[in-house]
């Protein structure tokens, strides 16, 4: 392609002033971005930065409140997934839109064929597409029997089958092994050479440098950078993602604010409490293998001890087994292999490894998907405060639930954590996500837990609240609780943790004391190096 041709040809996709609000939250704020033929652009950002909303608007699954989407020079309203496909945009979502009881070939026929399925012809077409894209796919295989990478290949092929100009890949590498990821990027390069534009949504720096031409970084709904990859450093990208500014020093300062070295009021920071060395191990994880919900192995052979009086951080890109690890430790699931034991448990009987049993022994749990797992949106704050207490027999007086005491403690929690609510009876579903999170934290930390399993406790909170939450976790640690902190935020890990273990690419590294490692080393492990 000649440079002149590029200049004459309108961009494949031009987003201009795109805005999308959800209630009070501006998920995407006046975003403008252009993709040309044969260009691979990374859209980067932390969780909640608004990347998924951009994808949904480009995919026709959500409509923007303001702004325009222009495709090959023509403004378009993408009101459905079908409309987006018709405009030449293929999207491979993070959660695949596949029917697990279908065969690969049937997945291709869905929505395209109405009458009789010509299976041999379908299979031949799938094989042809696969050969063209250089992917290996068996048309007769059941979707449900494929691993994540296999399902992803099907999704990509389905998109390519529609003769598209733009392929959007939403976090494609997060769930892949390094080998599969390399295969995926090889295919992306081939597509680029054929003139297809690719928008790669990711929060893995490694992806950016291995395959992308340009990097666009989002921070809190806004585009904070759109630059060629050549000339960018990983440190700059990290600061852009974390703080929205390219300056690493400024980012570090901001990160320090968030992690409590500087109190948000500007007062002199409390000197970091020299806390006592960690106590005895209270929970042991031995040779544990964790499977994702779809059956694929997330990580194998994890082993560590969790000690009283320490904060052990579990670092890693989302989807590398952190959720599964915490769920197993909380008794909600059993590991696929290996053992998890609690020192306080009197019996080794695995059938007793239930959430209720563990809670009674002092295991508190702040899950990452709090709306699904940790709250009952239709009930009030009081009933949600009692959620981890009443089922195991706390807050009972003469056999009945002591709602008077519960109400007093809920009100105290509302005050202590600064939860914005009209009162203890307001349905929790009406609270903002941050306030829901504060309630869950207040509840879980309210009964002097022996073990705290905290998955992304500060995700979705404002800086002031983050500092408060982190202070509370430190206080629990100093009280002698053993804390497992799942986080993808290096700033948080550095500010809080005593030791860190990294889950990436199916294996675990560490735990190592934080003092014996560097941000760069942990970052490299997280990226799977």
């Amino acid at each position: 392609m000649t440079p002149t041709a590029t200049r004459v040809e309108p961009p494949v996709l031009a987003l201009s002033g795109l805005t999308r609000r959800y209630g009070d939250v501006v998920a995407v704020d006046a975003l403008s971005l252009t993709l040309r033929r044969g260009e691979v652009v990374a859209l980067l950002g932390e969780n909640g930065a608004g990347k998924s909303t951009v994808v949904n608007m480009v995919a026709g699954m959500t409509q923007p409140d303001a702004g325009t989407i222009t495709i090959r020079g023509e403004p378009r309203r993408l009101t459905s997934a079908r409309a987006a496909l018709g405009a030449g945009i293929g999207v491979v979502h993070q959660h695949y839109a596949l029917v697990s009881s279908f065969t690969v070939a049937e997945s291709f026929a869905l929505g395209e064929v109405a009458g009789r399925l010509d299976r041999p012809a379908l299979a031949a077409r799938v094989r042809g597409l696969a050969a063209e894209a250089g992917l290996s796919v068996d048309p007769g295989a059941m979707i449900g029997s494929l691993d994540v990478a296999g399902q992803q290949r099907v999704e990509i092929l389905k998109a390519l089958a529609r003769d598209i100009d733009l392929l959007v890949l939403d976090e494609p590498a997060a769930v892949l092994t390094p080998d599969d990821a390399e295969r995926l990027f090889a295919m992306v390069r081939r597509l680029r050479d054929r003139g297809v534009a690719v928008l790669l949504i990711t929060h893995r720096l490694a992806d950016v440098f291995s395959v992308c031409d340009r990097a666009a970084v989002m921070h809190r709904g806004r585009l904070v950078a759109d630059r060629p990859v050549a000339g960018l450093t990983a440190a700059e990208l990290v600061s852009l993602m974390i703080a929205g500014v390219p300056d690493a020093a400024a980012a570090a300062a901001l990160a320090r604010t968030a992690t409590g070295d500087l109190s948000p009021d500007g007062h002199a920071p409390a000197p970091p409490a020299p806390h006592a060395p960690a106590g005895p191990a209270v929970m042991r994880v031995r040779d544990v293998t964790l499977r994702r919900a779809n059956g694929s192995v997330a990580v194998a052979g994890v082993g560590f001890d969790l000690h009283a009086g320490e904060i052990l951080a579990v670092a890693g890109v989302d989807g590398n087994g952190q959720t599964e690890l915490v769920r197993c430790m909380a008794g909600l699931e059993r590991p696929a292999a290996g053992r998890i034991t609690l020192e306080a448990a009197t019996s080794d009987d695995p059938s007793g490894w239930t959430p209720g049993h563990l809670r009674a022994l002092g295991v508190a749990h702040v899950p990452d998907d709090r709306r699904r797992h940790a709250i009952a949106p239709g009930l009030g704050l009081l009933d949600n405060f009692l959620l981890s207490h009443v089922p195991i027999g706390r807050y009972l007086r003469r056999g009945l639930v002591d709602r008077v005491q519960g109400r007093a403690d809920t009100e105290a929690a509302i005050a202590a954590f600064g939860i914005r609510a009209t009162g203890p009876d307001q349905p929790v579903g009406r609270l903002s996500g941050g306030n829901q999170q504060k309630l869950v934290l207040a509840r879980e930390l309210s009964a002097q837990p022996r073990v705290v399993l905290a998955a992304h406790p500060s995700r979705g909170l404002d800086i002031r609240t983050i500092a408060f939450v982190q202070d509370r976790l430190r206080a629990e640690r100093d009280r002698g609780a053993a804390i497992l902190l799942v986080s993808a935020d290096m700033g948080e890990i550095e500010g809080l943790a005593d030791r860190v273990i990294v889950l990436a690419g199916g294996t675990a590294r560490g735990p190592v004391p934080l003092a014996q490692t560097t941000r760069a080393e942990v970052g490299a492990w997280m990226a799977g190096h």
Partner: protein
Amino acid sequence: MDWIVITGLLASGVRFAMPILFAALGETVGQRAGVLNVGLEGIMLVGAFLAVVVAMQTGTPWGGLAAAIAGGTAMGLLHGVFCVRLKVDQIVAGIALILLGLGLSGFGYRLVTAGGAPGQVPGFQRLNLGPLSDLPFLGPVLFSHPAPVYLGLACAVALAWGLSRTGIGLGIRAVGENPKAADAAGIDVDRVRMAACAFGGAMAGVGGAFLSTAQLAGFVENMVSGRGFIAIACVVFARWNPLGAVAVALAFGIAEAAQIRLQTLYPGVPYQAFVLLPYVLALVGLVSAARTVHLPSALARPYRKD
């Protein structure tokens, strides 16, 4: 037991199976599309009633059948309006359908019979397929049933083929398994589900019509007596497979036919022990088939975009 008894047992078993089979086939399509209709009982009652009334009016059971299809479709669409369009609890809406069918059929029946006893119902006659019907054993068991029996069996084959071998079948299954995927593929989830509701209602109506104009000849209040629920158990037992539904419905039909014969064969055993056979069979079916991977994942879940 001698040969003649077994022949008669199987022959009537086939006929007894039909009301359950029709309703179960419709419900199979509905559940494959993600809609659970527990109100089949009510729809069958309406179908049974309309079939009798209109058959008498028009003088032909086919007229009754058409009326039952129309009434069943209307009831199915009503269920669809509530659980597909308004997205309310499918089970509660289904329970309302039970009461509605019970009430409408009973109300209509009493209105119609208020003027005196009803006359002869022109029911479906058993076909005489000539030499085929005269075959020993096979003749009575396979070749001397009323015409709708063959329609029902053909329907089962057509559905089995249609669900697995056509694009429309794929669409129905996708809507019930992963509506989001169906939506992404450009399928209008709610429209497919409404159509499935209408089809399920029509088939339940046919089941009721068979009961009152082919298996029996006339309407009695609450005559469906649990067949609508057995049909749902049949769907589960057959693991949402139309051909499986034929086998399971036959098992129910034969159990019903057998219990009548067993009562006379073993007068020493309380007859109630035999009457409850089909119901026990339904329980066994539920237990044996529940928690299989065949359950449509989005069953009884309304679909909303985003």
